[in-house]
Each structure stands twice: as structure tokens, then as C-alpha cells.
């Protein structure tokens, strides 16, 4: 196992938010502090050139992890290691150098571009900010190049974002992300706000660009079908913890964790195969007050006493995937094939 092949490593990262009411209110109403554990100890690594997807429902912490990886939040615990360099320990200049090598694409195409800036300026911002090029002509040519690569026209750089549709704006975001020649892109639900046909265009584009530039993607999504199309490996998150991590094919054909099985079962049956479905039980609990032990136990058909008191650790299943579940460990779960 070549460690130099690992581009990003996330080690036991946790991130908490203090959502307590103001001190005075708390004292008067005699309430304790409210700490939201958005991410509670997540570890994974991404190899060069691969696409790792993180899936989960609302409140699972996947967006928070994306922001921790990009440096928008500092982790409350644990570390993010990019190409061997611990981001928290790097000097400011080292950090600036590292920032050239990764970028982020956001979910909302309407809020991710500054409405008062022209498209050309938006795309050139990483170039100008990092001082990669200083000559105006050179920069303009580079922006022309990028716009063509994402399927827009060079004339578009004089326009404002509101003159474009959602899908076109996402292309502009992608062009901006590529302008500093990064190796790593964090994509936070990049197609969730787009129509199906536009989504197909963007996903195809992202795959093409990955092939052409050897990019590595961390792809966050709640849409399992999209994830199955674009990723090599998938990590399933629930209430801030990683419950299963495996190759895409494996996880969709042989899901181990009960939550993964439930998620797959809940996907609408587009091909109308009339497949057998386990009924989905309950709802995601309030992340401010998560259940004890394994946070999934109130909804889990296989929960026993151990599950209510002890949080399971990540173990390797026999096919190389990782899963965090007592029932799997104790071999109480029958391995099912997803239809």
C-alpha cells in the first residue's frame, strides 16, 4: 500500500457547534449549554484520481465534513492531512500554497457566485488571488480557455451571473474551481438544485474533466443514484458518524449496515421492478440530543442491549469494506443483495 498515493486523509475529525442560548437567558431559565456535535469522529482517506462520495440524510454531517476539509471550519478534534501536510500545523504561507491545490463547488448555483461581479472576474479570482498570473491578457486567455472547457462561450465573461440559468452557473463555478489548476475538488451537492437533464450534463462534464485533468473528487450528496454513477467509493454517514465505507459496486449490491440497507430500500423504484422493500422506520433524531450508544439503535431492527449502551467502532468486513455495527460484528445480520 503506497501511502504517497493518498491525497487526503481525515483522522478522527470532530466538529462541534455551540448553539446555546445567550448566557443571560440560560442563567434565568436554568438551561444547560447546547452543543451540537455535527461530526463526531470521522476517519477516511482519498487516493489520487478517485472519487469518494459521502452520502446521508439531513443532519448527518456530510456538509460539515466538506467544510472542515476545505478549511472553512477548524476541527474541534482530529486532523486533516492534505498530501502529507497537516493543515492545522502548516504555516500561513504553506497554507496559501496548499489552497491553490484544492477548491470547492457549492450546492446553490444562485448564491455561490457574487451577483455584482462579472463572470470573468469571478473565474479569475483564484488566479489573481494566488498570483499565478499577473498579465491581464494572459488571464483573459486563461478565462477564455476555462469557459470553453466547461461548455460556455468566451463572450460570457462580460456578463453577470443573473443572466445565466442554474446549470450554466454551476458550470461557471466549476470553471472558477479549475482556474488555479487544483488536484482536488470538494463538491457539496453540486447537482441537487438542478433539473434532471441539467444534472446529467454537469455529471458528464465532471467525469470528463476528471479524466482529462486527473482530478480527485470528494462528492457530497443525498442522492444515491447520482452517487452510484459518479463515485468509486462511498461512505455512508448518520448523525455525524461514518457507518459504512465500501466500493460503490459493493455497497449497492451488498450493503452491510442496517441504515445503508434502509436507505437503499427507500429509493423510489423507478424501473418498477416491484422489488421487496423493508418499511422505513422512524425519523432522524434531533442531533442536539442523539440516542446513546449506537445512534441508529431506535430505528434498527437488529438492535440489542449492547447497541443502546456501546457505540460501535469501525471494523473491516471480509471484503475490505468498513462498517460500524455490532450486529455485523456479531454476525447477526443476514447479508442481503439489494435489488
Amino acid at each position, binding site marked *: 500500500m503506497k501511502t504517497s498515493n493518498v491525497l487526503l486523509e481525515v483522522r478522527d475529525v470532530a466538529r462541534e457547534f455551540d448553539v446555546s442560548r445567550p448566557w443571560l437567558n440560560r442563567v434565568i431559565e436554568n438551561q444547560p449549554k447546547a452543543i451540537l456535535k455535527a461530526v463526531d469522529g470521522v476517519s477516511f482517506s482519498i487516493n489520487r484520481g478517485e472519487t469518494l462520495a459521502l452520502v446521508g*440524510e*439531513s443532519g448527518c454531517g456530510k456538509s460539515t465534513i466538506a467544510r472542515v476539509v476545505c478549511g472553512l471550519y477548524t476541527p474541534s478534534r482530529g486532523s486533516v492531512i492534505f498530501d502529507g501536510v497537516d493543515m492545522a500545523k502548516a504555516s500561513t504561507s504553506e497554507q496559501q500554497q496548499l489552497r491553490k491545490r484544492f477548491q470547492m463547488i457549492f450546492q446553490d448555483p444562485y448564491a455561490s457566485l457574487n451577483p455584482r461581479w462579472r463572470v470573468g472576474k469571478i473565474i479569475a479570482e483564484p488566479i489573481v488571488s494566488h498570483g499565478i498570473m499577473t498579465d491581464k491578457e494572459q488571464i483573459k486567455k486563461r478565462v477564455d480557455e476555462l469557459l470553453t472547457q466547461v461548455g460556455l462561450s468566451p463572450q460570457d465573461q462580460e456578463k453577470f451571473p443573473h443572466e445565466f*440559468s*442554474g*446549470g*450554466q452557473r454551476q458550470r461557471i463555478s466549476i470553471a472558477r474551481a479549475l482556474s488555479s489548476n487544483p488536484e482536488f475538488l470538494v463538491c457539496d451537492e453540486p447537482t441537487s438544485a438542478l*433539473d*434532471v*437533464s*441539467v*444534472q*446529467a*450534463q454537469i*455529471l*458528464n462534464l465532471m*467525469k470528463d474533466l476528471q479524466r482529462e485533468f486527473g482530478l480527485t473528487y470528494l462528492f457530497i450528496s*443525498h*442522492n*444515491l*443514484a*447520482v452517487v*452510484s*454513477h459518479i463515485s468509486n467509493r462511498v461512505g455512508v454517514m448518520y448523525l455525524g458518524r461514518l457507518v459504512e465505507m465500501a466500493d460503490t459496486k459493493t455497497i*449497492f449490491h451488498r450493503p452491510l449496515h442496517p441504515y445503508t440497507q*434502509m*436507505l*437503499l*430500500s*427507500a*429509493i*423510489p*423504484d*423507478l*424501473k*418498477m*421492478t416491484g422489488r421487496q*422493500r423493508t*418499511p*422505513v422506520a422512524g*425519523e*432522524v433524531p434531533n442531533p442536539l440530543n442523539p440516542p446513546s450508544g449506537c445512534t441508529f439503535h431506535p430505528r434498527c431492527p437488529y438492535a440489542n442491549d449492547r447497541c443502546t449502551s456501546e457505540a460501535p467502532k469501525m471494523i473491516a468486513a471480509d471484503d475490505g469494506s468498513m462498517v460500524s455495527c455490532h450486529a455485523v460484528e456479531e454476525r447477526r445480520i443476514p447479508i442481503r443483495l*439489494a*435489488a
Partner: protein
Amino acid sequence: MTTPLPLPLLEVRNLRVQFPTRRGLLTAVDDISLSIAPGEVLGVVGESGAGKSLTGAAIIGLLEPPGRIASGEILLNGRRIDNLSPEEFRKIRGREIGAIFQDPLTSLNPLYTIGRQITETILTHLDVSPAEAKKRAIDLLNEVGIPAADKRIDHYPHQFSGGMRQRVVISLALAAQPKLIIADEPTTALDVSIQAQIITLLKKLCREHGTSIMLVTHDMGVIAETADRVAVMYAGRIVEIGPVAEVIHNPQHPYTVGLMGAIPDLTKEVERLTQIDGSMPRLNAIPSGCAFNPRCTRKVEVGSRCTTERPGLLPAGKTQAACWLYANDGANDGANNPANHNVNAPQTVAV
């Protein structure tokens, strides 16, 4: 097969919804016709800007001015409802047509308990005593799966989670026992696992109460699970309509074909998703002839008719598609026309 068709519950004829703006008159829904039989679920699917939400809003009389119904008729049980005064429509809304909207947070009044909101709806439309109304409200909450309904009836909307709130909204929609429910993206704001629960619930309730649903959504998966028939909308027009299994497995209109190919499929692994180049035209720039023609890869098979004449819904296999490929009047060379073999069959497809 000439059995008389049962009277449809809802019939929309040549509906046109327009918006006068300072840049001109925009036609958001352009001459669509559809019908819903009693107890049937009709899906209306399309991407953003296709006009599906406006169709639902027009039917239930909630078009925001300056939008207005420019022409066409909407009939409920044979009676015209599009030309009623607001006062008369108020009696129908709730009693005969119920509504479920996308965002459960804003569909409920945060200042009133849900019990009060449900009983208010019941008392407005049905002639029962307040005690009876409260009993019915509790029964409804039980039906939609709210645990401890008799206690939770006095709770406020913010005390419910997203999925529970949507269940409350469904119970509100059903409170006055309407015959038709317009559901506009009822599951889009919910997590996938909750989505599945809500879809199952809707289907069950409507079967039990015999309520028809017009389900407006962009999610084909939800349609596949819930609807009996589906209408595909594009740029304010219906481009294909037919039984759900047919439209999904054998789409006839090139747009529907592209749409189905663009949806990533868990069961199949493809290198590239089908891509329809371009995007849906803006309302002030709708192409002449067939609205889809600039993006259509099969234009060559038909010729110039696509850019000059707008196609109506034509029989195409077991569905109907608004596409000149299926014209059987010899105007094109009918290269790939599966409709050729049943060109003489009487019009038995229930529309």
C-alpha cells in the same frame, strides 16, 4: 371497445395561463388538456419552468396576480370552476379540492395548534358539531400515522419534525373529504427515507378514501411509485401523456426519451448519462413550431414541419406524444413510427 368513458372528476380543456409583464405577454401554460378519473393518480412531471406548478395553481384557483387564466376551461364533476368568483371558489377549495404544497414549514400557521387548524377546516366545510370535528381530527391524525394523536392535537407546528409536519399537512388536505387533491412537490423537501413513508401514506389514504390526486413533481421516481398515468410537460405544453409504465419504459417523445436516459440508475452502470444539449427555453423565447425542436436529435426524420407547426397530442404506441414523428397523414416519411399499426383503432385511451 366502445364502452362509454366514466365522467372524469377533473377536466382541463385548452388551458392557457399568461402573465402580462412590461416586456410583453408571457404564456406560461400554453393550451393544455388533461383529465383525472375518480380515484386516479395523475402525475404531472417536468423540469423547472415547464409550467406544472402553475397548472396546479390554476386548477385550485391560487394563481398569483398578474398571472391569470387567459383561456380554456376547468371542469370539476362537469361543472366549470375557472370562472367562479373568489367567494364561490372558497366553498370549493378545501371541500372538493384539497392541496398539499412543498414546504411543510410554511404550509401550517405557526401560531395555531394543529388541532385548531384541522377542526377549523372541518367546521368550515362540513356541517358537524365542534366536538365531532375534534373527534374527526384525531381520527385523521391517527390515519396519517401521528403517534399519540389525542395528545399531539394540541401541539404547535414547530413541535413536529419535517416528516411529521407533512403528515399533518396531508391530514389537513383530507380533512374536508375532498374528491381531488393537488399535491405540488409534496416530498421534495424531505429526506429520502421520509419520502418513502409519505409516498406510501398518500397512496394508501387515497385508495381508502377514493380521492384522486394530481401529483406535480420533477422526480420521476416518485411518479413511478405513485401514479397511474403521467403527463410530461415541457415549456408550458404537455409533450407526452399515458400510463406510467408505458411512459417510463417505452417513452415515445424525444424529450421523454432524453429525460429517462438522464436519470442515473442504480441498477445499470453507464459511462455517460444521456445528455440533452441546451436548456428549456425561457418564456419570452419559446421557439415556433414544436417547443423542443432546437434540442431534438430526431428533427431530421421529420423535416421542416417541426419548426413551423406545433404538434398536438398524437397516438404513439400506448401513449400520446406531441411529436410529428407520429403523424400518420403522410407529411413525413414515417420512418420510425410504431403508431402505424393501430392508426385505425378507435380512441379508447382515457384522456
